[in-house]
């Protein structure tokens, strides 16, 4: 259905585009250069809910998680100048973590561009390297075409953020005629310079099948692309037919349920022992929707020395970028897996799989058992807390994290049983992401529950004492919207991850990693978010119960021991096979 309107202002036309694209939620912050759009929102309150963050960074991180949880394009909106520049960190985060986002920024009048007018910033120039595409609308007649393109580009191929800057004159300009055909109504947008969805080539599939069928010790590395393509079930079917062990990358996490007989955990710097230690022994690696980030490969020249690599990847620029592909399948992960599935042979690799289980056993005995157990003095450790939350939620929560040790602990100790359940800042490691992102995820869960009639999954924000303070003001957003974000603050009174590196690699010289923290419970209370603090194991069980049963946003402030380190670890410059289980090696 094409929307057609007469005598409509640019600001209204812009909102018409959003509504036509199926957008019902905006995350943003108003200001001078975007006021006509905010004024128009008044007329669209039935169709569009605007969520007012406390800082534009909060708005965009919320939008990111909202987008990622069910793969739909999210919209955030800000004014010109500082409003727009406050979005930059989020754009960068969304670019690196392939998040479909349309950011709308106000801009000064067309006639003032280039004059250093009040709150004029060259946001097109500034955001160019941080966006998949951007464009400045300075005439309302461009709105329909540009918005159509924006939504198409943001959520096709490898998704990413798009920024649309709109000058104030274009917002107030009256269009005698306006019509808009949404991407839902007509998904085919023809942009000759942008062809996002490659066809699966049968010769590539045939070459891959041959390698797969002849493999002796194959390994699947399933990345973010599996989640983005909604290919989790296909991945599982493919793994079960071929019998190949599956390791999920940081962003692939929750694509295979924990405890699945073929699931062998995470590769990479703080991943599991097996997929690091054994990956260099695999003869065929099937990399699906992942980009061989340096956090995954360790020392690149010593990564996968003997493996033939089948790389399934939708972004051509990622193929042969870090690890050369023996067979490249330039395609959507789901389409590629669907093409492979009927052709591959049924196989099993009991001995190979047993070696992963041996590694698991070793990791459990040398690392995990101790960390999830109770200290004699009753002090608490992050893994112990995380494991309890995992058990009590039966692995069915959505976990959103900030960045640091607690993030690695969330990743390692939450046993995901449901898919689309892990949201964290990976490529950019943005501290401050956790709280606003958890809000966005919880809001999306709430909407999903309303849509499907199923219960919303609990959303747990795992944050550290450092990163929490970077966007702590978004407690206000949580309390205003009464979205039941469960904030699990794992407080080690340190910028823990940096402290860990200083301890291990900088000769224990702690430089600027100690924090004098505020009273988090009081702060939370001040925002109207109920909170409690625990520091002893005797308090933990009941506190976690209260935390999980709360129907409002809730802060559980857990004081954990200060100088725990995250292990295993593939230190920078080491080969993945040199993964250390403990500080002693």
């Amino acid at each position, binding site marked *: 259905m094409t929307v057609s309107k007469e005598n409509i202002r640019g600001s209204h036309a812009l909102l018409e585009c959003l509504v036509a694209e199926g957008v019902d939620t905006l995350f943003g912050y108003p200001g001078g250069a975007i006021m006509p759009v905010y004024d128009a929102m008044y007329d669209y309150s039935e169709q569009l809910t605007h969520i007012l963050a406390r800082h534009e960074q909060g708005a965009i991180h919320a939008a990111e998680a909202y987008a990622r949880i069910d793969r739909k394009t999210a919209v955030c909106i800000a004014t010109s100048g500082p409003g727009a520049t406050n979005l930059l960190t989020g754009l960068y985060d969304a670019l690196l973590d392939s998040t479909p986002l349309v950011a709308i920024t106000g801009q000064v009048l067309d006639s003032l561009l280039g004059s250093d007018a009040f709150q004029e910033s060259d946001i097109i120039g500034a955001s*160019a390297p941080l966006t998949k595409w951007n464009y400045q609308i300075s005439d309302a007649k461009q709105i329909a075409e540009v918005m159509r393109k924006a939504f198409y580009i943001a959520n096709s191929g490898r998704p990413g953020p798009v920024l649309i800057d709109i000058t104030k004159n274009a917002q107030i300009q009256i269009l005698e005629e306006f019509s808009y055909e949404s991407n839902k109504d007509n998904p085919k947008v023809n942009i000759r*310079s942008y062809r996002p969805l*490659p066809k699966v080539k049968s010769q590539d599939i045939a070459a891959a099948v041959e390698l797969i069928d002849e493999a002796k010790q194959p390994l699947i590395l399933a990345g973010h692309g599996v989640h983005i393509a909604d290919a989790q079930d296909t991945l599982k079917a493919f793994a079960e037919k071929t019998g190949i062990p599956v390791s999920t990358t940081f962003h692939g996490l929750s694509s295979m349920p924990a405890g699945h007989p073929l699931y062998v955990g995470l590769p990479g710097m703080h991943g599991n022992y097996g997929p690091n230690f054994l990956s260099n022994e695999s003869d065929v690696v099937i990399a699906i929707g992942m980009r061989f980030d340096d956090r995954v490969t360790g020392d690149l020249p010593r990564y996968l020395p003997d493996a033939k690599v089948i790389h399934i990847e939708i972004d051509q620029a990622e193929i042969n970028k870090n690890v050369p592909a023996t067979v490249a399948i330039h395609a959507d992960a789901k389409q590629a897996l669907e093409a492979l599935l009927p052709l591959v042979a049924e196989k099993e690799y009991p001995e190979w799989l047993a070696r992963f289980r041996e590694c698991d056993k070793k990791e459990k005995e040398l690392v995990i058992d101790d960390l999830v157990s109770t200290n004699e003095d009753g002090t608490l450790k992050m893994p112990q807390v995380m494991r309890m939350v995992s058990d009590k939620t039966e692995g069915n929560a959505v976990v959103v994290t900030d960045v640091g040790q607690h993030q690695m602990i969330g990743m390692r100790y939450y046993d995901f049983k449901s898919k689309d359940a892990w949201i964290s800042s990976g490529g950019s490691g943005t501290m401050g992401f956790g709280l606003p992102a958890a809000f966005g995820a919880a809001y999306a869960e709430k909407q999903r529950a309303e849509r499907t009639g199923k219960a919303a999954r609990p959303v747990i924000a795992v944050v550290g004492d450092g990163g929490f303070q970077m966007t702590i003001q978004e407690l206000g957003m949580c309390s205003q919207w009464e979205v039941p974000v469960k904030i699990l603050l794992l407080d080690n009174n340190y910028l823990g991850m940096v402290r860990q590196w200083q301890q291990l690699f900088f000769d224990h010289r702690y430089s600027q990693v100690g924090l004098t923290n505020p009273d988090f419970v009081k702060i939370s209370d001040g925002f109207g978010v109920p909170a409690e603090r625990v520091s002893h194991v005797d308090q933990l069980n009941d506190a976690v119960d209260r935390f999980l049963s709360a129907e409002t946003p809730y802060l559980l402030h857990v004081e954990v021991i200060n100088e725990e380190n995250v292990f295993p670890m593939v230190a920078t410059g080491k080969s993945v096979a040199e993964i250390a289980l403990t500080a002693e090696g």
Partner: protein
Amino acid sequence: MDLNAPEVDHDAQHSYTLTVFTENVPGLLSEVVSVFTRIKMNIDTLTVSASRIEGIHRFTMTIDCTKKLIDKITAQLEKKVDIVAAFAYLSHEVVAREIAMFKIDTKVLNDEKTKKELIDLHNPAVVEEHDNYAVLIKSGKEAKIQAMFDYLEPHDCIYEFVRSGRIAVVREMDPFSKRLDSMDKEFH
């Protein structure tokens, strides 16, 4: 042209001519250049102009780097939404020329011996001649232009010297149209 041909050493330095086809939208120059600045790479020459196809701009660049790197560069360029295609060629795969303009003191042309030598050796076109200065144009391979500059320089007569940077056509028949066709076939 097959850059995957085995005789190309992937780790050795080569001189590449890049042709990049883009939509004609504002900001594209910096988009193209950012691919290079990001990796601290010098672009030796860069020219931008309209192409044969309406609405498509053509960038020609010369870059010294390895095959490994040029493949990554073309992939990063093509990843940009408004860039249609990027091709990298070795010297033998293109016909490349440059144009240079010299604004010189007219005294050089007034001296018969020097004038004759200049014309015989370098054969520039004299496009304007005034009492105090003259404008010469020389087109040819980069080395030829350099040679003319080297000849004039000792005469202490050059007021201005400007080079266009390399422009090139490729020996292959219409790779751009072929690419558009293959994109139609290979994408949904």
